[in-house]
């Protein structure tokens, strides 16, 4: 037997071990099996897993905590942020969790929370589902080991969003915990088409900044309305060494971002406090910039434009927006606040800080007075500490010369022509 054969056999044994582990430890989830859910008791005894959560209700923070059982949340990407997000929601007793990811657990993930070295090699969704079911068997967990950015899998993703709710209705909220622009744009496309509310979240590649962004199609800027919003880290790009590395990560930053994400998810679902539209986190200065950004009337996503006009009609018909959804109340009122909530939240990052604050205030007032955005410039004005990942494109048409020419040839003709080169 050659050395190669031995290696192959070793690999096969390893795979069998993993399969066995999945089969013996994975929760038996059949569609027909009745999902048994414990009563969410408010009784204060050591054996009640929900006593401290139900206490929120007794204290008057939350009106009806048990409502959490009705909700279905989709977590796309169960990596550093997504896995922790899923664990928090599981411990909070969310009704149903749907997890999407196509990656496997690797030892290189161990600097983050949640996964364990023994799970290396398992798909992330399988490993997550195993752990989460052990933590709280009341939560219904559904997993999809798929890449939503592929055309072949996007329709399934759309369908899950439309019918994944506890009783086959649409899901309540989508949480984006992915690590790339393509997947974020995919979620954005789906949510704009369906008019689904979602949270975008992210951690910078240098691991020292993060953010969450609440997107209500038509009401707030979608992910395609403007270049992605990121937190200014005040690190000069040129001094950032990127030799031999793609991305850094810290369990701390990811934990903070997951915490902010789930906190706002709970506020949105259970209707307490105010939900942040955009909330940034700069770990270097412990600064949390926040702002609201309106939809771009020239957004490149047609479904975003459609949602914008529908939102305008809704506001016209029901100016108070009270009887649409009682939970929306909180969010609608926040519209008037904009910008920075507290003066002392300002970072100490600049020498001309007063000047910055002054311009900021006047800018905020300006935008507040106008209900519609007049110029692109005004649209693109951001609060201190938040910046666009890059400048938006020039819309000038290229000259005719540089474009592909009209052709009589068919797709097949061209395909053949290319293959013959």
């Amino acid at each position, binding site marked *: 037997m050659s050395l190669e054969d031995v290696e192959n056999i070793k690999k096969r044994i390893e795979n069998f071990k993993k399969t066995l582990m999945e089969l013996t430890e994975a929760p038996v989830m059949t569609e027909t099996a009745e999902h048994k859910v414990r009563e969410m008791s408010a009784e204060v005894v050591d054996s009640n897993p929900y006593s401290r959560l139900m206490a929120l209700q007794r204290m008057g923070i939350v009106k009806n905590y048990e409502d959490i059982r009705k909700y279905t949340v989709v977590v796309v990407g169960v990596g550093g942020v997504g896995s922790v997000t899923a664990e928090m929601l599981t411990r909070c007793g969310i009704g149903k969790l749907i997890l999407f990811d196509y990656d496997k657990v690797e030892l290189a993930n161990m600097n983050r929370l949640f996964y364990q070295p023994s799970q290396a090699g398992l798909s992330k969704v399988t490993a997550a589902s195993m752990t989460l079911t052990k933590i709280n068997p009341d939560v219904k967990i559904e997993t999809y080991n798929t890449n939503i950015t592929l055309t072949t899998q996007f329709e399934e993703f759309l369908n899950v969003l439309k019918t994944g709710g506890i009783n086959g209705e649409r899901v309540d909220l989508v949480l984006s915990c992915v690590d790339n622009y393509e997947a974020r744009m995919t979620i954005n496309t789906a949510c704009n088409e369906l008019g689904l509310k979602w949270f975008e979240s992210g951690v910078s590649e240098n691991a020292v900044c993060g953010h969450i962004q609440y997107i209500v199609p038509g009401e707030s800027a979608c992910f395609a309305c403007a270049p992605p919003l990121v937190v200014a880290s005040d690190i000069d790009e040129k001094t950032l060494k990127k030799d031999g590395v793609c991305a850094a990560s810290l369990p701390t930053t990811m934990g903070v971002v997951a915490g902010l994400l789930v906190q706002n998810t709970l506020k949105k679902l259970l209707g307490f406090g105010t939900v942040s539209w955009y909330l940034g986190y700069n770990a270097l200065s412990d600064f949390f910039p926040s702002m609201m950004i309106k939809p771009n009337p020239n957004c*490149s996503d047609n479904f975003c434009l459609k949602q914008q006009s529908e939102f305008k009609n809704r506001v016209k018909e029901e100016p108070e927006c009270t009887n649409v959804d009682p939970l929306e109340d909180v969010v609608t009122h926040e519209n008037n606040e904009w910008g920075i909530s507290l003066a002392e939240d300002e970072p100490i990052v600049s020498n001309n800080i007063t000047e910055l604050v002054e311009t900021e205030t006047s800018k905020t007032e300006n935008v507040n007075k106008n209900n519609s955005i007049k110029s692109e410039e005004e649209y693109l004005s951001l609060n201190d500490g938040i910046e666009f990942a890059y400048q*938006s494109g020039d819309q000038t048409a290229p000259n005719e010369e540089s474009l592909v020419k009209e052709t009589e040839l068919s797709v097949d003709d061209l395909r053949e022509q290319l293959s013959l080169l």
Partner: protein
Amino acid sequence: MENTKKALSSIPLLKTKAGPRDVDLWPQRLKEEYQSLIQYVQNNKAADNDWFRLESNKEGTKWFGKCWVFQNQLKYEFDIEFDIPVTFPSTAPEIALPELDGKTAKMYRGGKICLSDHFKPLWARNVPKFGISHALALGLGPWLAVEIPDLISKGVIQYKEKE
């Protein structure tokens, strides 16, 4: 860098903003992609800088082919593959060299090449004018030029005789 700029400016730009889900317009976009690629390969040949071949499935959603790099008169060849994402052309295709997966830190899972910070902003500013040719010229080309000599010098990849 000058070469990249020159090569780039002679690649025809595209007109149609459509992805594979846009049933009506996708065939037109696909035609433009092919036209642009044909011109790019011809330009490369004319400049004695032929470095890749690509083909796609019938729907134009999956692409595969080969690229090669010369180093000390030896030809190093690699398989290319990528999918056209749902949000194309708003987002660029993620080009992968599967056989180099795990061999360099400048790669994401599945052998997707890790592009410079400049690529995505540049792509975003040029939607829908940029197509697959531009992703190759601005993404894969510069990546190969930097990474392959490095991987060869480290002994991570070895020259293979043509079978």
